[in-house]
């Protein structure tokens, strides 16, 4: 009897846990599902007074219209990819070097510098919007992909330093010491020891930086709004908005659907490293 009660307690407990997790998953997935299904509904169905979940008539009409209406869709997509990848490369390079220095070298103000970097994460990025605008304007970097990449990199740096600092702190000092004894320079130690050891952290930081850059709207709108050639996808989607915020919901949903794709692919590819990287350094012995 005691065994049955124990089992019931154990399975009942995990059942409840699964129930809660299931409910949370449904709540998280429902908006995505809604967008996917709505992108395949006809105009009349989307605007019907009777709400439907599954489309009565499946149609690609919204996708066709989206490509017709967003003239520069391909260009905006390419720009988003370039800016996001550029930001990831630049941020990981600079951020991991900074994290390496902060975690391995003892110098005056080391701790304060780290706290300052981390402190910038607490300040909303929009606070720096006007300042960055003026800076980019002074260097004639407005309406350029380079300018936007630099801007995003500056804001992503603190997060990268934070993650990589935790990861690098977890790498045993003995490994670096051994490498030094074998004749490795600090620079070589970084590339040959720290980078391979911190690969999962780099993947996690890279994924987060990519996500932030891919989805970013307000900076892209402010810095690059005057040039069609330097526009990114989130601003491109905003162009689908009609006068007085009149949206064609079907077209909007289809554009949002297509903007998901690279993010989902990236996450699926790096999921394992992402999870490992995020938890690296969280538990220290």
């Amino acid at each position, binding site marked *: 009897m005691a065994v049955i009660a124990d089992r019931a307690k154990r399975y009942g407990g995990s059942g409840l846990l699964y129930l809660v997790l299931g409910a949370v998953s449904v709540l998280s997935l429902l908006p995505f599902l809604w967008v996917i299904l709505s992108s395949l509904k006809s105009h009349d169905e989307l605007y019907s007074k009777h709400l439907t979940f599954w489309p009565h008539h499946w149609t690609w009409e919204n996708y066709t219209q989206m490509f017709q209406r967003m003239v520069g869709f391909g260009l905006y997509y390419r720009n988003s990819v370039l800016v996001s990848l550029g930001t990831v490369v630049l941020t990981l390079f600079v951020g991991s070097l900074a994290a390496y220095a902060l975690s391995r070298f003892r110098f005056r103000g080391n701790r304060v510098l780290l706290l300052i970097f981390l402190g910038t994460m607490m300040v909303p990025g929009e606070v720096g919007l006007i300042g960055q605008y003026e800076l980019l304007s002074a260097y004639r*970097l407005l309406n*350029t992909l*380079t300018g936007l990449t630099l801007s995003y990199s500056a804001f992503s740096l603190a997060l990268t330093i934070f993650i990589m600092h935790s990861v690098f702190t977890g790498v045993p000092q003995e490994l670096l010491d051994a490498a030094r004894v074998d004749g490795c320079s600090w620079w070589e130690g970084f590339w040959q020891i720290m980078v391979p050891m911190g690969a999962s952290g780099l993947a996690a930081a890279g994924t987060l930086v990519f996500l932030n850059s891919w989805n970013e709207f307000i900076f892209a709108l402010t810095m690059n*709004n005057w040039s069609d050639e330097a526009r990114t996808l989130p601003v491109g989607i905003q162009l689908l908005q009609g*006068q007085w915020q*009149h949206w064609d919901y079907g077209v909007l949903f289809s554009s949002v659907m297509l903007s998901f794709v690279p993010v989902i692919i990236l996450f699926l590819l790096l999921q394992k490293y992402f999870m490992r990287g995020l938890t690296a350094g969280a538990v220290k012995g």
Partner: protein
Amino acid sequence: MGLLLIGFAAERRLNTYDPRRGGVTTVRVMVDSWQYSEFMTPDKDLERCIRAFEKRHPEIKVDLRIMAEANEITLMLPWRANTTPFDLLLTTNNETITRYAEGGFLEPLEDILKPELEAGLLREFLPGYLQNCRLKDPQTGEEHLYGLPWLGEIMALNYRRDVLRENGYSDADVPETYQQLEALARKLRDPAKKQYGVTLDLSPGFFSQNAYVPVLRSFRGSVVDERGRLDVSSPEAAKTFEMLKRWYSQGLMPKGALTPYQSADDFRAKIAVFFPNWQSRGFWAIREMKDGEKHIGIGPAPGSRKAGALVAHYIGVIPKASPVAREGARVLLEAFCFDLQPGVGKAGKMIVIDYPYTRQRSGYRPDHVSKQIASLRALVDPAYRLPAWMESLRPTVDKGYCIPDPLTWQRVADIVGVEFQKYLNEDIPATEALARAKRQIDAVYE
């Protein structure tokens, strides 16, 4: 890093603007994304007019750039440094133009378009849409023409023709006053069928412009007090508040009326039968439905035949810092104010020049005009015919009016919108709610 540096250098080269190169002058034209997409179907008229202009003037190239909506205001940053990324803005409206003129950022058009203006160019436009094009120079105090309209909007009565038919009514029964509208809306109300007689945008941000002002004007014939401020103290102002509250609290309107833009979706979804709002709202519904005209009708807003309708318009302006102001003004005049007008009509917007309206009237005989004006009129597609709904709205444009005092409008409109929201939930006389609004409006001016 190397790639970034290469990208940086290449983009700097691309960003260099040389307005006159190889005998060709480049005019940089800014349109809002919605303006561009409104002309995509059926004929890509906006693009066509620009290419036709370039063909007529091989020495001018038009560089059309599409912007996200409502970002034009950021241009004031470069304008302050006496530079501009655009030579012609099509995004300015009757409200924003006053802000730019007040800042001294706009180029007066009198010298640039002297021959056309002397030939009577302004008589070609509907006077309702010329409002706010002439404004005072902040330095000298003299009035100047700072822009020309190219696209109009008008407050109309959008209605569900299909619901009227289903209930035994026809277009002849469409109400002409708000009292008639209320009476018919009561008869058409059927909550069991999720059907309401009327909807308006009562949300705080839009209440003043889309509900309060049009109703007040129909009751009183004016929307300003003796000091030129939005009237919130007349008996008609109280009557307006009371009527709109009654409609909402008695369920003549769906609850969505309080949510911004929801009223447009409720109308589109057949939840509301009458929807006094911009004619574009009705036209979009027509365009997005199969056999749209069988379902949707557009007519003059209640009371507007007598008191005129609220109008809004988009005005082409030339920034003072533009190095090619004259060429920019030519593009505006030829391509947008004349050649594009049939396209404006096809896009469901109001045509701003008189010629397409008058030439369609029975017994029309061409009047004698100067060579300049005749050549401009010749740009208007002779085959184009106005839709019946646009003709029906024309008389209400002639008496049309704009929102009062654009420089303070946003703050004043918000005050009245918020006070109405409070009034909906309070058991107080309308005069008391309006008195609160008046105190705040007076503070704005002080």
